[in-house]
Protein backbone atom coordinates (compact mmCIF):
# COMPACT_ATOMS: atom_id res chain seq x y z
CA UNK A 1 0.00 0.00 0.00
CA UNK A 2 2.86 2.35 0.89
CA UNK A 3 4.54 1.61 -2.44
CA UNK A 4 1.30 2.27 -4.27
CA UNK A 5 0.91 5.62 -2.48
CA UNK A 6 4.47 6.52 -3.33
CA UNK A 7 3.84 5.85 -7.00
CA UNK A 8 0.64 7.89 -6.80
CA UNK A 9 2.51 10.83 -5.25
CA UNK A 10 5.20 10.54 -7.92
CA UNK A 11 2.55 10.55 -10.61
CA UNK A 12 0.93 13.66 -9.15
CA UNK A 13 4.30 15.39 -8.95
CA UNK A 14 5.09 14.39 -12.51
CA UNK A 15 1.77 15.80 -13.63
CA UNK A 16 2.50 19.01 -11.80
CA UNK A 17 6.05 19.21 -13.15
CA UNK A 18 5.24 21.00 -16.44
CA UNK A 19 3.67 23.86 -14.49
CA UNK A 20 6.63 24.08 -12.12
CA UNK A 21 9.08 24.27 -15.03
CA UNK A 22 6.97 26.82 -16.91
CA UNK A 23 9.17 29.56 -15.45
CA UNK A 24 12.19 30.30 -17.60
CA UNK A 25 15.44 31.18 -15.86
CA UNK A 26 17.88 32.71 -18.28
CA UNK A 27 21.36 34.08 -17.61
CA UNK A 28 23.38 36.03 -20.17
CA UNK A 29 26.73 37.71 -19.84
CA UNK A 30 28.64 39.76 -22.38
CA UNK A 31 31.83 41.89 -22.42
CA UNK A 32 31.16 45.53 -23.19
CA UNK A 33 32.72 49.00 -23.26
CA UNK A 34 32.70 50.97 -19.96
CA UNK A 35 30.22 53.46 -21.41
CA UNK A 36 28.00 50.90 -23.13
CA UNK A 37 24.40 51.82 -23.87
CA UNK A 38 21.96 49.35 -22.32
CA UNK A 39 18.37 49.39 -23.49
CA UNK A 40 15.75 47.44 -21.57
CA UNK A 41 12.11 46.99 -22.40
CA UNK A 42 9.68 45.06 -20.23
CA UNK A 43 5.92 45.33 -19.98
CA UNK A 44 5.08 43.57 -16.74
CA UNK A 45 7.18 42.59 -13.73
CA UNK A 46 10.31 44.49 -12.73
CA UNK A 47 13.64 45.79 -13.97
CA UNK A 48 16.49 46.04 -11.47
CA UNK A 49 19.78 47.47 -12.68
CA UNK A 50 22.88 47.69 -10.51
CA UNK A 51 26.37 48.91 -11.35
CA UNK A 52 29.47 46.80 -10.78
CA UNK A 53 33.21 47.18 -11.36
CA UNK A 54 33.37 44.94 -14.41
CA UNK A 55 33.08 45.90 -18.05
CA UNK A 56 30.39 43.29 -18.51
CA UNK A 57 26.64 43.22 -18.71
CA UNK A 58 25.01 40.34 -16.91
CA UNK A 59 21.35 39.57 -17.15
CA UNK A 60 19.48 37.19 -14.88
CA UNK A 61 15.94 36.87 -16.14
CA UNK A 62 13.05 35.07 -14.52
CA UNK A 63 10.23 34.77 -16.98
CA UNK A 64 7.26 33.36 -15.11
CA UNK A 65 5.38 32.66 -18.30
CA UNK A 66 6.59 30.02 -20.71
CA UNK A 67 5.06 32.13 -23.47
CA UNK A 68 7.54 34.96 -22.91
CA UNK A 69 10.47 35.32 -25.23
CA UNK A 70 13.64 37.12 -24.30
CA UNK A 71 15.51 39.15 -26.89
CA UNK A 72 19.14 39.72 -26.01
CA UNK A 73 21.26 41.45 -28.62
CA UNK A 74 24.70 42.71 -27.74
CA UNK A 75 27.69 44.44 -29.24
CA UNK A 76 30.57 46.01 -27.34
CA UNK A 77 28.83 49.40 -27.27
CA UNK A 78 25.16 48.47 -27.29
CA UNK A 79 23.03 45.91 -25.46
CA UNK A 80 19.35 45.48 -26.17
CA UNK A 81 17.12 43.45 -23.86
CA UNK A 82 13.44 42.99 -24.42
CA UNK A 83 10.73 40.68 -23.16
CA UNK A 84 8.15 39.72 -25.74
CA UNK A 85 4.97 37.80 -25.21
CA UNK A 86 4.15 36.49 -28.68
CA UNK A 87 0.39 36.36 -28.27
CA UNK A 88 0.48 39.90 -26.93
CA UNK A 89 -1.92 39.15 -24.10
CA UNK A 90 -0.83 40.62 -20.80
CA UNK A 91 -4.32 41.06 -19.38
CA UNK A 92 -5.45 37.46 -19.75
CA UNK A 93 -6.03 35.60 -16.49
CA UNK A 94 -3.71 32.73 -17.32
CA UNK A 95 -0.97 35.13 -18.49
CA UNK A 96 -0.63 37.12 -15.31
CA UNK A 97 2.99 36.11 -14.82
CA UNK A 98 5.74 38.66 -14.48
CA UNK A 99 9.09 39.00 -16.15
CA UNK A 100 11.78 39.89 -13.62
CA UNK A 101 14.98 41.26 -15.12
CA UNK A 102 18.07 41.75 -12.96
CA UNK A 103 21.01 43.40 -14.64
CA UNK A 104 24.54 44.30 -13.71
CA UNK A 105 26.18 46.90 -15.87
CA UNK A 106 29.44 48.92 -15.85
CA UNK A 107 29.27 52.04 -13.66
CA UNK A 108 29.58 54.33 -16.66
CA UNK A 109 26.81 52.65 -18.63
CA UNK A 110 24.14 54.72 -20.31
CA UNK A 111 20.64 53.39 -19.58
CA UNK A 112 17.41 53.51 -21.50
CA UNK A 113 14.59 51.60 -19.82
CA UNK A 114 10.95 51.58 -20.71
CA UNK A 115 8.16 49.63 -19.04
CA UNK A 116 4.40 49.64 -18.77
CA UNK A 117 3.52 48.16 -15.39
CA UNK A 118 6.98 47.05 -14.36
CA UNK A 119 8.90 48.97 -11.72
CA UNK A 120 12.42 50.21 -12.53
CA UNK A 121 15.16 50.34 -9.87
CA UNK A 122 18.66 51.58 -10.65
CA UNK A 123 21.58 51.74 -8.22
CA UNK A 124 25.11 53.00 -8.68
CA UNK A 125 24.96 53.78 -12.41
CA UNK A 126 26.83 57.00 -13.19
CA UNK A 127 26.03 57.29 -16.88
CA UNK A 128 23.10 59.08 -18.43
CA UNK A 129 19.73 57.55 -17.63
CA UNK A 130 16.39 57.72 -19.38
CA UNK A 131 13.77 55.75 -17.46
CA UNK A 132 10.07 55.64 -18.28
CA UNK A 133 7.13 53.70 -16.96
CA UNK A 134 3.36 53.96 -17.23
CA UNK A 135 2.22 52.64 -13.87
CA UNK A 136 5.43 51.27 -12.41
CA UNK A 137 7.55 52.94 -9.76
CA UNK A 138 10.87 54.43 -10.89
CA UNK A 139 13.74 54.67 -8.39
CA UNK A 140 17.24 55.75 -9.25
CA UNK A 141 20.38 57.51 -8.04
CA UNK A 142 21.84 60.60 -9.64
CA UNK A 143 25.58 61.27 -9.82
CA UNK A 144 27.03 63.67 -12.39
CA UNK A 145 25.16 62.78 -15.57
CA UNK A 146 21.70 63.63 -16.82
CA UNK A 147 18.86 61.58 -15.30
CA UNK A 148 15.39 61.65 -16.84
CA UNK A 149 12.75 59.67 -14.99
CA UNK A 150 9.04 59.54 -15.75
CA UNK A 151 6.04 57.59 -14.61
CA UNK A 152 2.44 58.36 -15.43
CA UNK A 153 0.87 57.06 -12.23
CA UNK A 154 3.79 55.53 -10.39
CA UNK A 155 6.17 57.28 -8.01
CA UNK A 156 9.49 58.62 -9.19
CA UNK A 157 12.33 58.82 -6.68
CA UNK A 158 15.72 60.27 -7.55
CA UNK A 159 18.34 60.28 -4.83
CA UNK A 160 21.53 62.21 -5.43
CA UNK A 161 24.88 61.85 -3.73
CA UNK A 162 25.63 65.56 -3.86
CA UNK A 163 27.10 65.46 -7.36
CA UNK A 164 26.19 68.04 -9.97
CA UNK A 165 23.51 66.17 -11.86
CA UNK A 166 20.89 67.36 -14.27
CA UNK A 167 17.63 65.74 -13.27
CA UNK A 168 14.25 65.84 -14.92
CA UNK A 169 11.08 64.09 -13.78
CA UNK A 170 7.57 63.82 -15.17
CA UNK A 171 4.35 62.50 -13.71
CA UNK A 172 0.67 62.77 -14.35
CA UNK A 173 -0.86 61.55 -11.09
CA UNK A 174 2.25 60.08 -9.54
CA UNK A 175 4.64 61.82 -7.17
CA UNK A 176 8.25 62.83 -7.79
CA UNK A 177 10.66 62.95 -4.87
CA UNK A 178 14.10 64.35 -5.63
CA UNK A 179 16.67 64.67 -2.88
CA UNK A 180 20.39 65.19 -2.50
CA UNK A 181 21.06 66.56 -5.96
CA UNK A 182 23.04 69.63 -6.91
CA UNK A 183 22.63 71.77 -10.02
CA UNK A 184 19.66 71.55 -12.34
CA UNK A 185 16.21 70.07 -11.89
CA UNK A 186 13.22 70.21 -14.18
CA UNK A 187 9.94 68.70 -13.00
CA UNK A 188 6.49 68.44 -14.54
CA UNK A 189 3.37 67.07 -12.95
CA UNK A 190 -0.33 67.25 -13.72
CA UNK A 191 -2.16 66.33 -10.52
CA UNK A 192 0.57 64.57 -8.61
CA UNK A 193 3.21 66.12 -6.35
CA UNK A 194 6.77 67.33 -6.66
CA UNK A 195 8.89 67.21 -3.51
CA UNK A 196 12.51 68.21 -3.86
CA UNK A 197 15.54 69.10 -1.78
CA UNK A 198 18.29 70.57 -3.90
CA UNK A 199 21.66 72.04 -3.05
CA UNK A 200 23.56 74.48 -5.23
CA UNK A 201 20.62 75.22 -7.50
CA UNK A 202 21.60 76.68 -10.87
CA UNK A 203 18.42 76.06 -12.82
CA UNK A 204 15.17 74.96 -11.26
CA UNK A 205 12.11 74.75 -13.45
CA UNK A 206 8.97 73.14 -12.06
CA UNK A 207 5.41 73.24 -13.23
CA UNK A 208 2.15 71.66 -12.24
CA UNK A 209 -1.45 71.95 -13.27
CA UNK A 210 -3.25 71.04 -10.05
CA UNK A 211 -0.54 69.24 -8.15
CA UNK A 212 1.50 70.52 -5.23
CA UNK A 213 5.11 71.71 -5.50
CA UNK A 214 7.17 71.65 -2.30
CA UNK A 215 10.86 72.53 -2.60
CA UNK A 216 13.76 73.19 -0.26
CA UNK A 217 16.62 74.79 -2.12
CA UNK A 218 20.01 76.33 -1.66
CA UNK A 219 20.55 78.88 -4.41
CA UNK A 220 23.82 79.68 -6.17
CA UNK A 221 24.44 83.43 -6.80
CA UNK A 222 23.23 83.12 -10.42
CA UNK A 223 20.46 80.64 -9.86
CA UNK A 224 17.37 80.78 -12.05
CA UNK A 225 14.20 79.46 -10.42
CA UNK A 226 10.85 79.25 -12.20
CA UNK A 227 7.76 77.57 -10.82
CA UNK A 228 4.29 77.68 -12.30
CA UNK A 229 0.96 76.14 -11.42
CA UNK A 230 -2.61 76.56 -12.55
CA UNK A 231 -4.37 75.59 -9.33
CA UNK A 232 -1.66 73.81 -7.40
CA UNK A 233 0.18 75.25 -4.41
CA UNK A 234 3.83 76.26 -4.44
CA UNK A 235 5.94 76.11 -1.28
CA UNK A 236 9.55 77.27 -1.59
CA UNK A 237 11.91 77.24 1.35
CA UNK A 238 15.31 78.72 0.63
CA UNK A 239 18.36 77.97 2.73
CA UNK A 240 19.80 81.20 4.19
CA UNK A 241 21.55 83.43 3.44
CA UNK A 242 19.06 84.39 0.74
CA UNK A 243 20.34 86.75 -1.97
CA UNK A 244 17.73 86.78 -4.67
CA UNK A 245 15.32 88.89 -6.71
CA UNK A 246 11.74 87.69 -6.42
CA UNK A 247 8.84 88.09 -8.85
CA UNK A 248 5.71 86.42 -7.60
CA UNK A 249 2.30 86.61 -9.21
CA UNK A 250 -1.06 85.06 -8.47
CA UNK A 251 -4.32 85.64 -10.33
CA UNK A 252 -6.64 84.64 -7.50
CA UNK A 253 -4.60 82.73 -4.95
CA UNK A 254 -2.80 83.86 -1.78
CA UNK A 255 0.84 84.87 -1.50
CA UNK A 256 2.61 84.29 1.80
CA UNK A 257 6.07 85.74 2.32
CA UNK A 258 7.98 85.31 5.55
CA UNK A 259 10.64 87.85 4.45
CA UNK A 260 8.18 90.60 5.35
CA UNK A 261 7.18 92.31 2.10
CA UNK A 262 3.45 92.27 1.38
CA UNK A 263 1.89 91.38 -1.95
CA UNK A 264 -0.07 94.16 -3.63
CA UNK A 265 -3.30 93.87 -5.62
CA UNK A 266 -2.85 94.07 -9.37
CA UNK A 267 -6.26 95.69 -9.84
CA UNK A 268 -9.13 97.12 -7.80
CA UNK A 269 -11.57 94.88 -9.68
CA UNK A 270 -9.77 91.52 -9.79
CA UNK A 271 -8.43 89.35 -6.96
CA UNK A 272 -4.92 89.15 -8.48
CA UNK A 273 -1.84 90.03 -6.46
CA UNK A 274 1.87 90.34 -7.12
CA UNK A 275 5.02 90.72 -5.14
CA UNK A 276 8.44 91.83 -6.38
CA UNK A 277 11.36 92.44 -4.07
CA UNK A 278 15.07 91.89 -3.58
CA UNK A 279 16.28 89.95 -0.61
CA UNK A 280 19.86 90.41 0.59
CA UNK A 281 22.17 91.49 -2.20
CA UNK A 282 20.01 89.89 -4.89
CA UNK A 283 21.53 87.99 -7.79
CA UNK A 284 19.61 84.77 -8.01
CA UNK A 285 16.29 85.12 -9.82
CA UNK A 286 13.10 83.54 -8.48
CA UNK A 287 9.89 83.71 -10.51
CA UNK A 288 6.77 82.06 -9.16
CA UNK A 289 3.42 82.18 -10.86
CA UNK A 290 0.03 80.65 -10.22
CA UNK A 291 -3.48 81.15 -11.46
CA UNK A 292 -5.62 80.06 -8.53
CA UNK A 293 -3.21 78.21 -6.27
CA UNK A 294 -1.38 79.70 -3.32
CA UNK A 295 2.33 80.53 -3.05
CA UNK A 296 4.45 80.45 0.07
CA UNK A 297 8.11 81.48 0.31
CA UNK A 298 10.33 81.41 3.35
CA UNK A 299 13.89 80.83 4.50
CA UNK A 300 13.02 78.19 7.05
Amino acid at each position, binding site marked *: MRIRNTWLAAAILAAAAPQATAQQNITKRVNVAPDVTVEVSNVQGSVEIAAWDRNEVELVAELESDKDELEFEATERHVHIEVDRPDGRYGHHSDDENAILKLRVPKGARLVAETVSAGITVTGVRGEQNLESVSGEVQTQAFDAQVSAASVSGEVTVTGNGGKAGVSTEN*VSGRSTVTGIRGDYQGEVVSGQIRATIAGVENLELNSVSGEIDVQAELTPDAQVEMETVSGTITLRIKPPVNADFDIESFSGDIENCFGQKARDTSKYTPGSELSFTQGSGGARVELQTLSGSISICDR
Partner: protein
Amino acid sequence: MNTIPFGPRNPPEDPLLAKSAELPKEVEPSRDLWPGIAARLAADKWGRDPFLRQEKVTSPSFGRWPLALAAGFLVASVSALLTWSLLRAPEPAVQPQVASTQAPVTEVVPVSYGPNSGVTAQELLARDELLVQFREKFATLRPETRDAIVKNLAIMQAAADEIDAALAKDPASGMLKGMLAGTYKQELQLYSTVVTSRDGLTRRT
Protein backbone atom coordinates in the same frame (compact mmCIF):
# COMPACT_ATOMS: atom_id res chain seq x y z
CA MET B 1 -36.57 85.05 -44.48
CA ASN B 2 -40.23 85.02 -43.29
CA THR B 3 -40.89 84.15 -39.68
CA ILE B 4 -44.28 83.21 -38.26
CA PRO B 5 -44.74 84.39 -34.70
CA PHE B 6 -46.32 81.99 -32.21
CA GLY B 7 -49.22 82.75 -29.87
CA PRO B 8 -53.02 83.41 -30.12
CA ARG B 9 -54.00 85.94 -32.76
CA ASN B 10 -57.10 86.87 -34.80
CA PRO B 11 -57.72 84.40 -37.68
CA PRO B 12 -57.78 87.13 -40.33
CA GLU B 13 -54.28 88.27 -39.20
CA ASP B 14 -52.83 84.77 -39.11
CA PRO B 15 -52.13 83.29 -42.56
CA LEU B 16 -52.10 79.69 -41.23
CA LEU B 17 -55.43 80.08 -39.46
CA ALA B 18 -56.93 81.76 -42.52
CA LYS B 19 -55.83 78.82 -44.72
CA SER B 20 -57.19 76.25 -42.24
CA ALA B 21 -60.60 78.04 -42.23
CA GLU B 22 -60.86 77.31 -45.95
CA LEU B 23 -60.65 73.52 -45.41
CA PRO B 24 -63.98 71.44 -45.62
CA LYS B 25 -65.60 70.52 -42.29
CA GLU B 26 -66.24 66.86 -43.34
CA VAL B 27 -64.45 64.51 -45.75
CA GLU B 28 -66.70 62.07 -47.70
CA PRO B 29 -65.12 58.63 -48.47
CA SER B 30 -64.58 57.97 -52.14
CA ARG B 31 -66.89 54.87 -51.97
CA ASP B 32 -69.37 53.23 -49.55
CA LEU B 33 -67.35 51.03 -47.16
CA TRP B 34 -70.24 49.53 -45.18
CA PRO B 35 -71.17 46.56 -47.50
CA GLY B 36 -67.63 45.16 -47.13
CA ILE B 37 -67.68 45.44 -43.35
CA ALA B 38 -71.10 43.77 -43.15
CA ALA B 39 -69.93 40.88 -45.32
CA ARG B 40 -66.90 40.22 -43.03
CA LEU B 41 -69.13 40.18 -39.96
CA ALA B 42 -71.66 37.82 -41.59
CA ALA B 43 -68.92 35.36 -42.64
CA ASP B 44 -67.96 34.86 -38.98
CA LYS B 45 -71.15 33.03 -38.12
CA TRP B 46 -69.61 31.26 -35.08
CA GLY B 47 -68.87 34.62 -33.52
CA ARG B 48 -65.10 34.04 -33.51
CA ASP B 49 -62.28 36.12 -34.84
CA PRO B 50 -62.03 35.56 -38.59
CA PHE B 51 -58.23 35.25 -38.26
CA LEU B 52 -58.65 32.22 -35.97
CA ARG B 53 -60.65 30.53 -38.61
CA GLN B 54 -57.94 31.21 -41.13
CA GLU B 55 -55.48 29.46 -38.84
CA LYS B 56 -57.69 26.38 -38.79
CA VAL B 57 -57.80 26.27 -42.56
CA THR B 58 -54.00 26.27 -42.81
CA SER B 59 -53.45 23.46 -40.24
CA PRO B 60 -52.04 20.19 -41.74
CA SER B 61 -54.59 17.71 -42.95
CA PHE B 62 -54.45 13.91 -42.51
CA GLY B 63 -53.05 13.66 -46.02
CA ARG B 64 -49.76 15.30 -44.85
CA TRP B 65 -48.92 12.96 -41.89
CA PRO B 66 -45.73 11.46 -43.43
CA LEU B 67 -44.27 14.95 -43.64
CA ALA B 68 -45.17 15.65 -40.00
CA LEU B 69 -43.60 12.35 -38.96
CA ALA B 70 -40.38 13.19 -40.82
CA ALA B 71 -40.25 16.63 -39.21
CA GLY B 72 -40.74 15.11 -35.74
CA PHE B 73 -37.97 12.61 -36.40
CA LEU B 74 -35.66 15.41 -37.54
CA VAL B 75 -36.31 17.46 -34.40
CA ALA B 76 -35.70 14.41 -32.18
CA SER B 77 -32.47 13.59 -34.04
CA VAL B 78 -31.09 17.13 -33.79
CA SER B 79 -31.99 17.25 -30.09
CA ALA B 80 -30.24 13.92 -29.42
CA LEU B 81 -27.17 14.99 -31.41
CA LEU B 82 -26.94 18.25 -29.48
CA THR B 83 -27.21 16.47 -26.12
CA TRP B 84 -24.55 13.94 -27.14
CA SER B 85 -22.16 16.64 -28.34
CA LEU B 86 -22.54 18.60 -25.11
CA LEU B 87 -21.86 15.51 -23.01
CA ARG B 88 -18.91 14.37 -25.12
CA ALA B 89 -17.16 17.76 -25.33
CA PRO B 90 -17.26 19.64 -22.03
CA GLU B 91 -14.45 22.10 -22.98
CA PRO B 92 -16.47 24.21 -25.39
CA ALA B 93 -19.19 24.46 -22.77
CA VAL B 94 -16.65 25.82 -20.26
CA GLN B 95 -14.99 28.23 -22.65
CA PRO B 96 -17.76 30.79 -22.82
CA GLN B 97 -17.83 30.83 -19.03
CA VAL B 98 -14.11 31.73 -18.93
CA ALA B 99 -14.61 34.41 -21.53
CA SER B 100 -17.49 35.90 -19.61
CA THR B 101 -15.41 36.26 -16.43
CA GLN B 102 -12.88 38.51 -18.21
CA ALA B 103 -13.36 42.19 -17.58
CA PRO B 104 -14.40 44.09 -20.69
CA VAL B 105 -11.68 46.35 -22.07
CA THR B 106 -12.33 49.89 -20.95
CA GLU B 107 -12.66 52.36 -23.76
CA VAL B 108 -9.85 54.87 -24.12
CA VAL B 109 -11.09 58.42 -24.42
CA PRO B 110 -8.37 60.73 -25.71
CA VAL B 111 -8.04 64.21 -24.28
CA SER B 112 -10.33 66.75 -25.90
CA TYR B 113 -8.75 70.20 -26.18
CA GLY B 114 -11.04 73.20 -25.91
CA PRO B 115 -11.46 76.09 -28.31
CA ASN B 116 -8.89 78.27 -26.54
CA SER B 117 -6.20 75.64 -26.45
CA GLY B 118 -4.60 76.44 -29.78
CA VAL B 119 -3.95 72.74 -30.46
CA THR B 120 -4.00 72.52 -34.25
CA ALA B 121 -5.82 70.00 -36.43
CA GLN B 122 -2.44 68.71 -37.59
CA GLU B 123 -1.36 68.07 -34.02
CA LEU B 124 -4.60 66.23 -33.32
CA LEU B 125 -4.15 64.21 -36.49
CA ALA B 126 -0.67 63.17 -35.37
CA ARG B 127 -2.09 62.26 -31.97
CA ASP B 128 -4.87 60.20 -33.53
CA GLU B 129 -2.40 58.24 -35.67
CA LEU B 130 -0.48 57.29 -32.55
CA LEU B 131 -3.75 56.54 -30.80
CA VAL B 132 -4.60 53.83 -33.34
CA GLN B 133 -1.40 51.94 -32.42
CA PHE B 134 -1.92 52.65 -28.74
CA ARG B 135 -5.44 51.16 -28.75
CA GLU B 136 -4.11 47.89 -30.19
CA LYS B 137 -1.56 47.60 -27.37
CA PHE B 138 -3.91 48.89 -24.71
CA ALA B 139 -6.25 45.94 -25.16
CA THR B 140 -3.39 43.55 -24.35
CA LEU B 141 -2.45 45.17 -21.02
CA ARG B 142 -3.48 43.87 -17.63
CA PRO B 143 -6.71 45.37 -16.22
CA GLU B 144 -4.99 47.36 -13.43
CA THR B 145 -2.73 49.05 -15.95
CA ARG B 146 -5.64 49.80 -18.25
CA ASP B 147 -7.54 51.33 -15.32
CA ALA B 148 -4.52 53.46 -14.37
CA ILE B 149 -4.23 54.72 -17.93
CA VAL B 150 -7.90 55.58 -18.21
CA LYS B 151 -7.80 57.34 -14.84
CA ASN B 152 -4.76 59.38 -15.85
CA LEU B 153 -6.27 60.34 -19.19
CA ALA B 154 -9.25 61.66 -17.22
CA ILE B 155 -6.83 63.68 -15.05
CA MET B 156 -5.24 65.12 -18.19
CA GLN B 157 -8.71 65.95 -19.50
CA ALA B 158 -9.54 67.80 -16.29
CA ALA B 159 -6.23 69.68 -16.57
CA ALA B 160 -6.86 70.58 -20.22
CA ASP B 161 -10.35 71.84 -19.32
CA GLU B 162 -8.98 73.89 -16.42
CA ILE B 163 -6.29 75.46 -18.59
CA ASP B 164 -8.73 76.08 -21.43
CA ALA B 165 -11.11 77.87 -19.09
CA ALA B 166 -8.23 79.99 -17.81
CA LEU B 167 -7.10 80.74 -21.37
CA ALA B 168 -10.58 82.03 -22.14
CA LYS B 169 -9.95 84.75 -19.54
CA ASP B 170 -6.32 85.34 -20.44
CA PRO B 171 -5.69 84.20 -24.04
CA ALA B 172 -2.18 85.68 -24.16
CA SER B 173 -0.83 83.87 -21.10
CA GLY B 174 2.43 82.20 -21.99
CA MET B 175 2.31 80.19 -18.79
CA LEU B 176 -1.07 78.68 -19.65
CA LYS B 177 -0.05 77.97 -23.24
CA GLY B 178 3.05 76.25 -21.97
CA MET B 179 1.02 74.17 -19.52
CA LEU B 180 -1.36 73.13 -22.23
CA ALA B 181 1.49 72.16 -24.53
CA GLY B 182 2.84 70.15 -21.60
CA THR B 183 -0.46 68.33 -21.16
CA TYR B 184 -0.59 67.52 -24.88
CA LYS B 185 3.00 66.28 -24.73
CA GLN B 186 2.25 64.08 -21.72
CA GLU B 187 -0.73 62.55 -23.47
CA LEU B 188 1.44 61.69 -26.48
CA GLN B 189 4.17 60.37 -24.22
CA LEU B 190 1.72 58.05 -22.48
CA TYR B 191 0.63 56.54 -25.80
CA SER B 192 4.21 56.40 -26.99
CA THR B 193 5.47 54.60 -23.88
CA VAL B 194 2.85 51.87 -24.24
CA VAL B 195 3.43 51.48 -27.98
CA THR B 196 7.21 51.45 -27.85
CA SER B 197 7.55 49.26 -24.78
CA ARG B 198 5.56 46.59 -26.56
CA ASP B 199 7.34 47.07 -29.87
CA GLY B 200 10.86 47.44 -28.60
CA LEU B 201 12.92 50.52 -28.03
CA THR B 202 15.23 50.13 -30.98
CA ARG B 203 12.37 50.00 -33.44
CA ARG B 204 11.41 53.49 -32.36
CA THR B 205 14.61 55.08 -33.66
